[in-house]
């Protein structure tokens, strides 16, 4: 079920109304579980079993870690829990890739293994297994990480219910934001209607639906030309513009989804972490990764980069750690070597940046230098998005070849106009943030325009929504 489908609105209104009924106050958690199971099962009913198994595995192993007294037992359960989560993710998401890469493909008629490998990718598996790993590691570090206001020392049954909610909470189930266990569990408590952050929720929902339904869904119908073999017929200038359009589209799609998830969670009394902080104004690659998919960056930093040693073991080890984290982070996005390549490109950029960090170009604070750095980051990020749009390496290669060779083909302005029209709100969105950051005497006057801006965005959603398309990150 998509957040943008009419059915979802009816579903959410029903859940919301039931959730805040006084009689339901003590049953809010079971209601959320039922709603989340229904939400997930609506599109892949047979894979709900995998989700429940994964959640149960995480609950059981984390509980064993929590109640274990001896350090060796706790470590063993931690390793077992993390290992099982990785095994589930590895088999269902990467099993096909590994099998295709190293042997002849098995089909659905080739026994149980073939049948399992032929299953479609379970939606959200990358997210809920990362939540499971976060839970187990957080508990191993601090057994109070899963304490809730009503259950500071949860029983096994309470912990199972809380963990099922943590992993299946429908606003963030299929595409995040990834919230760490020690940030989610303390929020598990009965919620009151009077405490709903209406302003925060409505603002997040308006901007989220605008970015998704108006910007991303409309851009989808133009950037589809950035596909193989259609891209072979496009001029180099058109290809560049399509790539820029895709850059705007993927930001609007994912940031829009995240804001919708945050807004829906707020309506249910839960705070999810911010996932995007105006990433396209970044002046360095390291800054970009503190602004883009922030919840994933935070997860990788805490559960992978730091345990590998971070930057504490010398330059060489730091660079290795960066490459490992970025390549695995890329591979997390999709079961294809092009995603690892995408991550590797970012890893190389981070390393290169560290090497030149002390240079005048990077140290200068004047406007021209900052603009040049931001342009460099944005240009690089936009170019390597091609590996997302064209996950077959051969097709991505064809794009770069066409980019270099098709300058003689005629430029088609029509699609460029459309991309410019829908990229403008993305530019304005970032510009508004820069203006807010700059502050100044006129800012407080400009702030009074906020209701007008949100009202205009809301009306544009009704007037100019594009055809409904699935969220790009659903495929991950």
């Amino acid at each position, binding site marked *: 079920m998509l957040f943008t489908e009419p059915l979802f609105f009816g579903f959410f209104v029903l859940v919301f109304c039931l959730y805040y009924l006084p009689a339901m106050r003590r049953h809010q958690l079971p209601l959320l579980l039922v709603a989340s199971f229904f939400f997930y099962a609506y599109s892949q009913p047979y894979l709900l079993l995998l989700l429940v198994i994964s959640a149960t595995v995480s609950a059981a192993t984390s509980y064993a870690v929590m109640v274990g007294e001896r350090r060796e037992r706790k470590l063993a359960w931690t390793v077992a829990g993390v290992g099982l989560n990785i095994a589930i993710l590895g088999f269902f998401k990467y099993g096909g890739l590994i099998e295709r890469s190293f042997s002849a493909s098995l089909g659905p008629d080739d026994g149980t293994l073939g049948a399992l490998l032929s299953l479609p990718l379970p939606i959200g598996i990358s997210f809920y297994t990362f939540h499971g790993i976060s839970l187990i590691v957080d508990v191993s570090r601090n057994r109070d990480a899963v304490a809730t206001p009503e259950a500071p020392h949860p029983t096994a049954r309470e912990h199972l219910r809380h963990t099922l909610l943590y992993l299946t909470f429908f606003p963030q189930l299929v595409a995040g934001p990834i919230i760490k266990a020690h940030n989610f569990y303390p929020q598990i408590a009965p919620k009151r209607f009077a405490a709903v952050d*209406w302003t925060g929720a409505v603002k997040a929902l308006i901007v989220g639906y605008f970015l998704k339904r108006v910007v991303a869904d409309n851009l989808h*119908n*133009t950037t589809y030309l950035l596909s193989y073999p259609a891209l072979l*017929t496009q001029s180099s200038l058109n290809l560049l513009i399509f790539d820029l359009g895709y850059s705007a589209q993927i930001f609007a799609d994912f940031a829009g989804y995240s804001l919708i998830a945050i807004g829906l969670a707020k309506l249910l009394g839960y705070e999810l972490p911010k996932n995007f902080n105006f990433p396209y104004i970044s002046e360095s690659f390291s800054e970009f990764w503190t602004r883009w998919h922030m919840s994933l960056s935070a997860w990788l930093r805490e559960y992978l980069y730091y345990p590998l040693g971070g930057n504490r073991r010398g330059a060489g080890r730091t660079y290795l750690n960066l490459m490992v984290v970025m390549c695995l982070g890329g591979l997390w996005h999709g079961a294809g070597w092009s995603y690892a390549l995408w991550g590797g490109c970012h890893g190389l950029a981070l390393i290169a940046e560290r090497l030149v960090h002390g240079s005048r170009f990077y140290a200068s604070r004047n406007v021209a230098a900052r603009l040049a750095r931001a342009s460099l980051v944005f240009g690089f990020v936009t170019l390597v998005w091609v590996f997302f749009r064209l996950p077959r390496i051969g097709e991505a290669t064809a794009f770069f070849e066409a980019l270099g060779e098709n300058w003689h083909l005629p430029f088609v302005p029509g*699609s460029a106009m459309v991309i410019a029209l829908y990229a403008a709100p993305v530019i304005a969105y970032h510009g508004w943030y820069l203006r807010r950051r700059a502050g100044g005497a006129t800012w407080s006057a400009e702030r009074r325009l906020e*209701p007008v801006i*949100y009202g205009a965005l*809301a*009306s544009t959603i009704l007037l*100019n929504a594009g055809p409904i398309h699935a969220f790009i990150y659903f495929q991950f």
Partner: protein
Amino acid sequence: MLRNIATAAIVALGFYAALIALWSPDIRSGQDQESDVAIAVERFLYDGPVPYAAIVGSSQAARIPRSALGAGVANLGLAGESPLVGLEIIARRGQIPRRLYIEINNIGDAPDAAFVDAIFAEPRYTLKRFVKALRTTYQPANVVISLLRRAARGRDEVYYPKVADEPLHDALLAHRQGLLAAAPDAAVLERNLAEVKRFSAEFATGATELVFFEMPIDPTLEQSPAVVAVRRAAHAAFPRGAACWNDDKAPPGLAATDGIHLDSDTAAGFWAKLAKTACDRPQPE
């Protein structure tokens, strides 16, 4: 704050609805192919009485420019859709044009029932009749793009030029040859032709004249397995003795941008001949 946001939204909606109701700009094409399809359908459904004639078909028939059609002819050649979709839309409107030109090139494509259902889904179908601003035609982006096109080129219509780059044209042609190498699913083709027969029987009660035609394609593709299979099946279902066919051949030096889609000028030239197809008596074999 929330009250102010809601007020601003309502004012913005009301202002735009009033603007479109009073202005009603002549929008002929939109921001993308999907919008173009929606605009063509909405023009047929909502803009005045039913036209004298209509074309139903796919993206191939859609290449006939509106400026070449003149008043009284609607082009329901819909990119990405089968001719059956156009026929279904006409049938559901309930008022049938006096002449229907039916493109057979893609009659082997399964019709998209969900697309047609979405067009007629209530309450949007009825609301769009009275609130123009809700139509895809008058989406703010389509209005802006239309104005920009008129400012830049003096016309709103999308113009498809000839492909000047020979190697590119050859590559597109080769790709198309591959796509047409296999005949369409025979069961789907038979089912679709039976549906066309049902529509033609229904429309014949209102004395609507049906003209079957094949959009010209690159001569090197005319004997492709897919093209031949569709042609044979269509002629078998609607033999010349009983149905009206356009027999105009492909113009010399035909320029199809990718082998099957004509450039705008060639498509306009073909329409000039198609419109003159005489169907006073069924044509003998």
